[in-house]
């Protein structure tokens, strides 16, 4: 992970979550965000990207949705804390906790059979290859996941300190 924790715009997948560390350098935008109560420390969850791209909907943890432009999010320092497993922010060698398995019943069953469960710890074995190879930390099992499956698995960063 880069030391400056700016989220690459392309990494803003739905269901990612980040913590705002600073509001960015544009005074007007920073002031507007601050006045809406979106301040350093606020968790932002990305709900969706607009069909035409460029604009995203985020939730501020108060149950309230906002629309922002990607450039505004990219300009502020928002540290990723959770993301779908297919996100390019998921790095090899780090340990993640499964936060959410967002799928129907059969998906849940399939995951359970493979040994994946919420709050379980996983690691990526090889970055950037498909299907995605993961290792279940608790049982030391290896599982390979398809793109569609990985999309529904939301993982959380468990150690916040940077390991560059």
């Amino acid at each position, binding site marked *: 992970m880069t030391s400056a924790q700016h989220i690459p715009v392309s990494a803003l997948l739905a269901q990612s979550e980040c913590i705002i560390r600073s509001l960015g350098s*544009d005074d007007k*935008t920073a002031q507007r965000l601050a006045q809406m*109560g979106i301040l350093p420390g606020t968790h932002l969850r990305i709900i969706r990207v607009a*069909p035409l791209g460029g604009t995203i909907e985020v939730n501020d943890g108060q*149950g309230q949705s906002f629309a922002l*432009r990607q450039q*505004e999010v990219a300009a502020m320092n928002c540290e990723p804390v959770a993301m779908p497993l297919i996100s390019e922010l998921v790095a090899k060698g780090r340990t993640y906790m499964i936060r959410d398995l967002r799928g129907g019943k059969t998906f849940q069953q399939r995951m359970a059979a493979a040994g994946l469960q919420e709050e379980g710890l996983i690691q990526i074995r090889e970055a950037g290859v498909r299907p995605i190879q993961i290792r279940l930390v608790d049982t030391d099992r290896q599982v390979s996941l398809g793109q569609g499956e990985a999309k529904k698995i939301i993982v959380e960063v468990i150690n916040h300190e940077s390991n560059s």
Partner: protein
Amino acid sequence: MNPTAEPVTIALASIPNSGKTTLFNLLTGSSQSTGNWPGVSVEQKSGIFSLGEYIVTLIDLPGTYALSPVTEEEQVVRDYLLNSPPNIILNVLDAGNLQRGLGLTLQMAASALPMVVAVNMIDETRRRGITLDLKALALHLGVPVIELSAKTGEGLPDLKEALYEIIKHPEKTRIPHISCPPLLEKAFFQITEAIGKSSIDTRLDHTFLAMRMLEAENQNQWTSNEKVAALTKKWQRRLKQSLQTSFPVVCAGCRFNAARGLAMEVLGEQPIIEDKLNSRLDHIFLHRFFGLPIFIMLMFLLFQGVYGLGAPLQEILSVAFDRAGSWLFSQFMVLSLPAGLQSFLFDGIWQGIAVVTSFLPIIALFFFFMSLIEDSGYMARVAFLMDRLMHRLGLDGKAFISILLGYGCNVPAVMGTRVMSNSYSRILTMLLIPFTLCTARLQIFVFLTAIFFTSAIAPWIILSLYGCSFVAVILSGFVLKLFHIGGTPEPFIMEIPPYRFPTLRSVGLRSWYEMKDFLSRAAPLIIAGVLIVWLLIHMPTNVPPASAATWAGQLGQILAPVFQPLGIGWQETIALIFGFIAKEIVVGSLAVIYGGTDLAGLMSSHITQMQSISFMIFCLLYTPCVATIAAIWSESRSLRITLISLVSGLAIAWLASFIFYQSGLLFGFN
């Protein structure tokens, strides 16, 4: 009623979308008037209601997140509170969005003005099973806190009683203590002291004033005291050097720490539950693949709703007007008047009134559907869906709807720019709408293409004119963005409200007031415009109307050198002058000017195909009609913007026709 009771002013203030206007309508009923805040195109609404022996003027302030202005709306609110503080602030909180609203509540409480807090949308929180401890809120804020649903009217008597009490026994609001970094506290303290020593006369708390001054670039508007201004400037420099973030951001941080605490007191340990229905609806309306097709379908329905229903109504009105007119002007009393006066009454005044009336059905329908879209919450979704596209032109996503509806009629479209929340987008959109090909222009094009082209080619010409209109809108958008005509753009950070059921009452009221507003603000200008054109065409009185010898004809001939390079003769120039009134009458005026029975034959012998296209391009791009100009004037309240619209339309029309006609000649067409 006690005639000695002092007039009382209450200002409604809150963050956007918390129900101010709904409450305003509930309290003031039919006694509303709208206008613009001085100097800016921000709507100003005020109304009157009585409370016991008091006559209360209620002011609906624009929604703002804070008093440290980022937007023009926020500046309006701050200036209003500072320069003419109301007797009482009525702060509205959305019960489902407490923390955000409390940020502003705390900031306003610091002013020490008497305040009542109405916690609105209580019906929604109840439905979602959320309970609120409002006693705790009242205790912490030290002001009356009333539960309310502006939609159902629940809690209104309590609110009125609380307002009455506070008018009778005005009590300064206790200043909430918000802890700030020591350096800021010191700055506040010193400036407050200086203000205290100066002879400023204000009902506002001095620390509040000190904070506002620290945020502002120019303190002179509030104090002529040099010492205060100099001290403020000194502290601004110091704070800039020592704070890592800007001063208003630091203050917002402190405020929201307190607001979070307060919200927690009110809500207790209740978890935040997502509204399932809401997210399901968004899953459909903002869907990656279906979102846009659904949007296009809804826009089609909207367009059909406004114009499909509006056009027949307009037709009926116009027939009724014609009939009434011919009846009225066949009466003996009128016939006994001199012919010139008759014409003035009939072709001038009567015609002007007819033009004004013809807009009423579409304005009513337009705002009926607009309010549906806005109140239901879909408007915010439109802004989200279209933001990418419109942002390229420097516009708000909401501008899309206004521009789209311009393709039906420019007048309501310009009035509809009011739904946009920032004045930059509003002005820009207003300036772009006149380039849309409205149905009145379409009538001219259908008529002329039928004369000059075969039925196989005519539709393509019309299609190209639509293309030309799109290009004009887009290019002008880029140019206007470049020159910052509408001021500076504002950051796009928009709250997406939950879906709500619009009430017939609020939607109906809105249509009604917009019609009234149009009549009082734009109508006089429209009638004046019609009269001016009437004069041009009928003066002097001893020549046939619209002939070469009239003022219009002379103007046409004076302008001939200007229009000659476009291939537009003086007869068509007169028709263009007619076109200022309304594009619907251009064809009719051509018939008068050419004066024959076979207009098609006469025209095609006078005018070439190239010249007819050049004429149509000019018609497409120059001033749509006096009503649009009147609407732009009454929306922007800016002579500059109105003139820019007028002049840029004429200039662009001339240029486009010139380029088309001359390059056509160059390539050997004629």
